[in-house]
């Protein structure tokens, strides 16, 4: 027997965080998947235990200021791509408003730390959403283009081809064959 599952990563992450923090009786407020406010000062022993426990879920406690800011940029982009109101704004003003840094600073920091520009990352993220919707839903490409706020299906399929080197049709064919291939249906 085989079942297919779909994840809401945000819910998964927050639930795991809550469970692990409660397990150690740490008073806290979760502000989002990437930020937790701890309501007391933690002993280094508690912090290590928490860090180890979270590590087994692939969750890492970040300590470096730059890395934290890059994560916040990525999370903000994530929110922007999901929300409706944000689509109307320019990425640069959206990020600098939300994070209170100049876009030039954020953009330099991002490139320096991740070796990719914010613009390229956004395209990669949108193409990843497109792939996800193509592989896991029955939406047509036109519907996906509408949902992800592309001006047209031609624009989406052009950006897809340019970024991935594959046409959407080719991608779908490969994913379909992978699913049929039993070793991938784990």
């Amino acid at each position, binding site marked *: 027997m085989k079942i297919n599952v779909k994840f809401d*990563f945000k819910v998964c992450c927050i639930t795991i965080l809550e469970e692990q923090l409660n397990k150690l009786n740490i008073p806290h407020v979760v502000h989002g998947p990437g930020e937790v406010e701890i309501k007391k000062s933690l002993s280094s022993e508690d912090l290590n235990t928490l860090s180890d426990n979270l590590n087994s879920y692939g969750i890492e406690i970040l300590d470096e200021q730059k890395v934290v800011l890059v994560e916040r940029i990525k999370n903000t982009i994530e929110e922007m791509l999901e929300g409706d109101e944000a689509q109307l704004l320019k990425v640069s003003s959206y990020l600098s408003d939300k994070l209170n840094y100049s876009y030039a600073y954020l953009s330099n920091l991002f490139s320096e730390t991740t*070796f990719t520009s914010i613009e390229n990352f956004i395209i990669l993220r949108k193409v*990843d959403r497109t792939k996800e919707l193509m*592989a896991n839903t029955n939406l047509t490409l036109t519907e996906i283009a509408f949902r992800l706020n592309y001006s047209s299906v031609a624009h989406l399929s052009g950006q897809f081809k340019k970024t991935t*080197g*594959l046409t959407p049709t080719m991608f779908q064919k*490969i994913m379909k064959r*992978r699913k049929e291939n039993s070793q991938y249906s784990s």
Partner: protein
Amino acid sequence: MENNKNILNIALADDDMDDRMLFEEAIEEIEIKTKLSLYNNGQELMDALNLPNVILPNLIFLDLNMPVKNGMQCLKEIRMNPNLKGITIAIYSTSSSEKDIEETFVNGANIYLNKPNNFSKLRKSVERVLQLDWQYHTSNLNKDNFLFRL
């Protein structure tokens, strides 16, 4: 420890010595810090991956046509092994046959890179592969859909 985390471990299996040398030169010119291990054929690569307590590469470049064990066989073995499943695989081949490309993707390759015919293109392509790999390891991107043809 801190530093090691920022170094990308890369392996290349290719039976052509010139190709290995060019690849090594290209990767040295790239800003992303890497540690490269070279293998002369697929069997050497697989033997290395199966050593006990080995530090696994994050990313493997695989030539398709190699003696002893070819790239396709390596790809299948890697994808069937739960310990190795998470490694990014970039096929690095002269073949641009649509059939080869599709087959490698179906069998779990993440990137298909045609061997470029000049050094500057090679450097650019390898850099792009490293960037993509980096993003897939550090961002919330779905690795199941990690498919690119360069």
